[in-house]
């Protein structure tokens, strides 16, 4: 299904407004896309804050799609390409993707594009299996590659393992801080029948992203398409914050619909100094 996606929403960067992207699922696990502003409550360090931004129309997405190409992933190469192409096929107008990989090297395409032929070319030519799993370093670089973009910024990782850090040192704590500071959403998809590392799941949950287990190899492509669908159906929320201590603060998002569960980032980094 091709969603009609609005042109990119540009938020003027006032450090007072904290943006939160929320995914809501019903008891049956299906996405709930018909909530209104009044259905949401947002709390900053436990204090309810009035919503100053609300949008429930499909939003264009900006994604760094990162494939783990470590030794153990070599057997999935064809499936990885299929999954990547399924992801690309599910993109809507205005969506942009940057494809990268990590293993023998961490390589991220300089092209951030919605052009399907270019993305298909990169999937075909630029995935090389082999090497260790510099997971945190790769995640960090992927976020850096989206640093200059506005709006919702997503890193989607397809990986089978835990960080091995053999080639280049990367630290989970730094990656976590980077995600919080930049408001990046982290998504992770694991290989079939294998659970993701606890640290990665935790990072994804705290960022407001998500993680997916894949029952079988045949489900890879549909899982990637599902991630795109979820990203398109997120709610854009925002509240005004007057915190200026440069520290991490808690965010809680609740919805009034019975049985519905909401996923959103759990922390944000307050502005530092005087807000003008």
């Amino acid at each position: 299904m091709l969603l009609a996606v609005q042109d990119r929403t540009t938020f003027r960067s006032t450090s007072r407004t904290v943006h939160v992207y929320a995914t809501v699922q019903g008891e049956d696990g299906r996405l709930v896309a018909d909530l209104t502003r009044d259905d949401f409550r947002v709390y900053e360090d436990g204090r309810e804050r009035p919503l100053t931004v609300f949008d429930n129309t499909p939003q264009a997405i900006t994604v760094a799609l990162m494939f783990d190409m470590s030794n153990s992933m070599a057997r999935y190469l064809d499936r990885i390409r299929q999954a990547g192409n399924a992801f690309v096929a599910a993109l809507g107008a205005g969506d942009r993707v940057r494809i990268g990989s990590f293993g023998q090297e961490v390589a991220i395409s300089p092209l951030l594009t919605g052009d399907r032929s270019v993305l298909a070319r990169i999937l075909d030519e630029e995935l090389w299996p082999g090497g260790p799993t510099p997971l945190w370093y790769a995640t960090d670089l992927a976020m850096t590659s989206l640093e200059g973009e506005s709006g919702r910024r997503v890193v989607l990782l397809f990986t089978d393992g835990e960080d091995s850090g053999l080639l280049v040192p990367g630290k989970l704590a730094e990656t976590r801080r980077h995600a919080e500071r930049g408001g990046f959403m982290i998504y992770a998809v694991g290989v079939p029948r294998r659970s993701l590392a606890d640290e990665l799941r935790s990072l994804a949950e705290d960022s407001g992203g998500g993680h997916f287990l894949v029952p079988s190899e045949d489900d890879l492509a549909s899982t990637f398409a599902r991630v795109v669908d979820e990203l398109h159906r997120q709610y854009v929320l925002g509240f005004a914050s007057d915190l200026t201590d440069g520290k991490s603060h808690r965010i809680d998002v609740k919805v009034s619909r019975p049985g519905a569960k909401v996923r959103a980032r759990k922390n944000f980094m307050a502005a530092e100094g005087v807000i003008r």
Partner: protein
Amino acid sequence: MTTLLLCAWLAGLQPQARPAIDVVLMVDVSHSVTYGAIKRDRTLVHDAGAALAASLAPGDTARVGTFGDTITLETARLTDAAAVRSAADALTDKVGGGSPLWDALVAAVAALEDGKARRGVVVITDGRSTANRTGFADALDRLERARIPVYVVMFDKSDHAIPDPGARLVRIAKATGGTCLFVERPAIAGAIARAAAALRDGLSATAR
């Protein structure tokens, strides 16, 4: 008649002027080439530059570039071996990142467009191409149209089965009139010398 034959014979005895070459050496310094599991290989650019310098003859010009996180290629042509070695040594710290192989070849060929001597590109790589702005088909087309031979010196540090990293490079070498040599790391210097000699002699061959 006898005089004419004598003149022709004497002309044959004169040493043949070796054609000058104008060469760009591009060295892959991506993670996959320069980072080992134990330590970084920071000697590749130095070794490659020294090998090219040793292959130069009076009248030749050369430049040394690298590709990894960025593509680095000085615009000024170097005319002596010491300058080539020095230029290579100045690049030894620029290691790591992806492998924009096609972009690097396109940049190298573009840098040679205004050359008058026998022009060629020598590229040292493990064949993995990532983080390119230019796709392979587009790069192949541009390289072919430039009519500048590409001499590939390829080595693969990986001990794992990967899609044939050399297939596309062989196509480029054939299409441009260059050569493609597959070597082990210690043989890279010799392969660069062979590539320079092939450029000077206008040879085209692919050997594994």
